[in-house]
C-alpha cells in the first residue's frame, strides 16, 4: 500500500490523477494538499512518524500562498529529519526549460514531469519507488 501526496491547487487535475492511479493494479492511499504551505505544515509535524509519511509526492509548481519552489526550499530543510525516503516528483504544466534546470538544484527532486500524466508513467513511478524503497 503506497502513500501518495498530491500537492496541487487544480481540483480537476487532482481528480483526474486520482482516477488514473485508481486504474492501476496498485492500491494507494492518496492525500491532497491545495498549496505548499499546508503540505509543509503536515510534513513538519509528521517527520518522525513513519506511518504518516508518504512514499511519493507529486508537486505542482504554480500554487497560491506557497508555490512549489518555496515548498522545495522548506522541504529541503526538513528532509534530513524525515524518517522515510520519499520520492518527490514535480508535476507541472510548464514546459519551460529554465524551470527544469532550476528543479535540478534541489536534490530532493527525483524528476520533473510535464502534465498530463498517463497511466503508464504513473505505473513506472510506483514501480521505481518500489525498488528504491
Amino acid at each position, binding site marked *: 500500500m503506497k502513500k501518495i501526496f498530491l500537492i496541487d491547487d487544480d481540483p480537476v487535475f487532482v481528480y483526474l490523477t486520482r482516477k488514473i492511479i485508481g486504474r492501476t493494479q496498485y492500491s494507494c492511499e492518496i492525500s491532497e494538499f491545495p*498549496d505548499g504551505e499546508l503540505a509543509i505544515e503536515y510534513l513538519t509535524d509528521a517527520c518522525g512518524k513513519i506511518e504518516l509519511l508518504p512514499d511519493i509526492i507529486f508537486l505542482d509548481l*504554480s500554487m497560491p500562498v506557497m508555490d512549489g519552489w518555496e515548498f522545495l526550499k522548506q522541504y529541503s530543510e526538513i528532509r534530513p529529519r524525515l524518517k522515510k525516503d520519499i520520492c518527490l516528483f514535480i508535476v507541472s504544466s510548464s514546459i519551460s526549460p529554465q524551470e527544469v534546470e532550476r528543479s535540478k538544484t534541489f536534490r530532493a527532486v527525483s524528476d520533473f514531469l510535464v502534465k*498530463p500524466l498517463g497511466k503508464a508513467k504513473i505505473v513506472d513511478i510506483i514501480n521505481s519507488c518500489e525498488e528504491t524503497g
Partner: protein
Amino acid sequence: MAPALTFLNKDPEKSQISSWLPSGQPLEKDFDQLLLLASQICDTSIAAITQVSKGHTFFKAIHGWDCQEIGWAPEKDESTNEAILLIKDTLLDKHFSCHPLVKGEPNIRFYAEIPLVTDTGILLGHLCVMDKKPGSLTDLQVSTLRTLAKSILCFLSLKSQLKEFKKNDDLAVRNEELMETIFHDAIDGVIVSDENGIILKWNPKAEEMFGWRAIEVIGKPFYDTVIPGRHQAAIHSLLIKYQKDNEEHITGNAVEIHGRRKDHTEFNIELSISPATIRQGRYFIFFVSDITDRKLTAEKLDKQKVFYENILNKLPTDVAVFDGGHRYLFVNPAAISKEEYREFIIGKDDYEYVKYRNREIAVADVRRARFLEVKNSGKEVRWEDSLPDPDGNIITHLRRMYPVYDDNGDLTLVIGFGIDITDRKLMEEKQTAYVKQVSVQNTQLIDFCSIVSHNLRAPLVNISMLVDFIESSEDPDEQKLLISKLRPVIDNLHDTFNELVESIQIRRNLEIKSEDVCLNDCIKRTVDGLQTEITKLDACLEMDFNEGSVIRYPPQYLNSIIHNLVSNSLKYHQPGRKPVIVMKTRKVNDSVILSVSDNGLGIDLVKHKENFFKIGKVFHRHPNAKGFGLFMTKTQVEAMGGKIWVESVPGNGTVFYIEFTNQKRKAS
C-alpha cells in the same frame, strides 16, 4: 733728537707734497748741477740734499762725495727748523763731532744746512754744504743758498706736476686705444658722421655688413650709402630733427628698417642713432645690427603662432588655459564666441567673469572647486555640466581639466577642455530609454511565456485529459460527470485568455486618450459596483485628495485600477476587523502619488516580492483569488509611464502606491 720729516705723512696734502721727494728713492741726478752751484757759491767741496728719518740721514742727492745713508741725524729743536744751521768747526761741536762723516772719511770740519720748506710750511729736507776745513758763510752766501733752496723746491714742484701730466697723458692714450678697439671689434656696425650725416668713421663690422670699405664711404652721406632710396628721406628728416632738438638724450630710438649693401641687395637692420656733441662739434653715431636672422626667426615664430592659433581657434572643442591661480590665460572662440568677452576674461577668474556676465555665482563656485581638485590632486578631473544656452536649451558639456608642470615640478598651467555632448547625451538618454523599454518588453515576454505555459497550458491539459477519459469511459453516468467538469476548466481558460488579450491591448494601445478624471467620481463608481461587499463588511472608506483630486489618465484604466485595489482590500480583509480603506493623493514634482491603504491581512513581501504583480499569482486561500487583478493594474499603470509599489506587514495591512506621471497642471 727731533725726527725732522716723520710728521710729513699726516694729511693728504702733505702726503702728496712728500712725494716730491720720495724717501727710499735713488739719488736724484737732476739736482747735480744745482748742488755744484751750491758748493761753488759756498766754496765747499761737498753739497747735498738730505732727508732725516728715524735717526738716520738720507742723502737724496750729493755732490763732491758719495754716500746714501748714515745712522746719524742732527740734533735740533723744532724752533730751529727754519733757521740756518751753521757749524763752523765740527770738532768743536759736541754733537757733530760724532757725525760719521766727521769721524771718518771725508773728515768734515765745516757744516751748514738750509731747510727746504714749502709755501705751506712743510719741511721736505735740507740743502746742506760741507767742507774738509773749518769755515763760515757770508750773508750773501746764506741768502744765495736760500734762493737756491727755493729753486730746488720749485724744481721739485714742477717735476711732480710733470709726472702728473704724464700720467694723465698715458690715460688719454689708453682710453683712445680702448675706444678704438671697441670701435673695431664691435659686433654691431658703428658709423660716425658729422652733423650733416657725412660719414667720418666706418668700422670693420660695417664693412662686412654693407660690403663698403671705410675708405670708399668716408666723406659720403650716411643715408645715401646704406639706406634704400625709399627710406632716405625719412632718415634725413630724422637727422635734421636731431640737429634742431639739440638734445643729447635722444638715444636708443632703434628702428627696424632695410639696409642696402654695396651690391644693392637689401637686408633687415636695426638702426639706432645717437647724436653727440664733442668739443662743440655735432656728430651722429649710428649703430647698425643685422637682424635678418632675428627677423626670420620672428617670422617663423609668427607663422607658428598663427598655425597654433588657427588650430586652437577653429577647434570645435572649448579650450581654456589657466595660470596656477585659476586666472584665464587663453580661451578659444569655441569656449567664448564673443570676442569682447574673450578679451575681457584674460587675466581674470570665473568670479569676475560671472559678475561681468550677470551669471550665478554658483557657476564660478563649481569651477573653482574643480580647479582646486585638479591643483591639489595633480590629476586630471572629468565631469559633465549642463547649463542653459541663451535660448534656454540645456547644453551638456563633458569637461576635462588637467595640470601641466614644468621641469621643476611646479604647476605652470591648468588646461581645460569642454566637448559639447548634448547630442550624445540625448542619444544616451534615448538609448537608456530604449534599453529600459527592451528590458521591460523582455520581462513581459518571459512573463508571457510563463503565462502561456502555466495559465493557458494547465486548463488545456485538463481538457485533453478529461476528453481522454470521456472517450475511454463506457459508463454514461461517469461520462456525464466528466463532461460537467469540463465547463469550469473551459471558463477558466476563457477568463485567462481574455485577461491576456486585454493586457496585450493595453500595452499596444499607445494612442489611448488621457482625460481629466475626477477621483471622487471614479471612487463613487467603484463603491457603487462593490456596494454589496461594503455593506456586508461594514467597510469604511476615507478620502483625502487635497493635493490632487483630478488625474489626467485614460478613464477606463483609472476606474479599473481603483476598482481592483479597493476590491482587493475588501477581499483580503482581516476576519473580525472592520475594513478601513484610506485613499490619499500627494504631489511630488510633476507626479501625483495615490496611496490606497487598508487594515487587512497584509502580504509577506519577503516571500512574494518577485511574484507580486504577476499574472495568476495569489497569496491567500480565497475562493475568488485568481491572480489577475494586480497583474492588470500594473499593466495599466506602466503602460502610461507610471509606477506601482507596495508596502505591507502581514496581519496589519497593505498600502499600494501608484505614481501618475506628467500631472503638471496648466496654470488656470
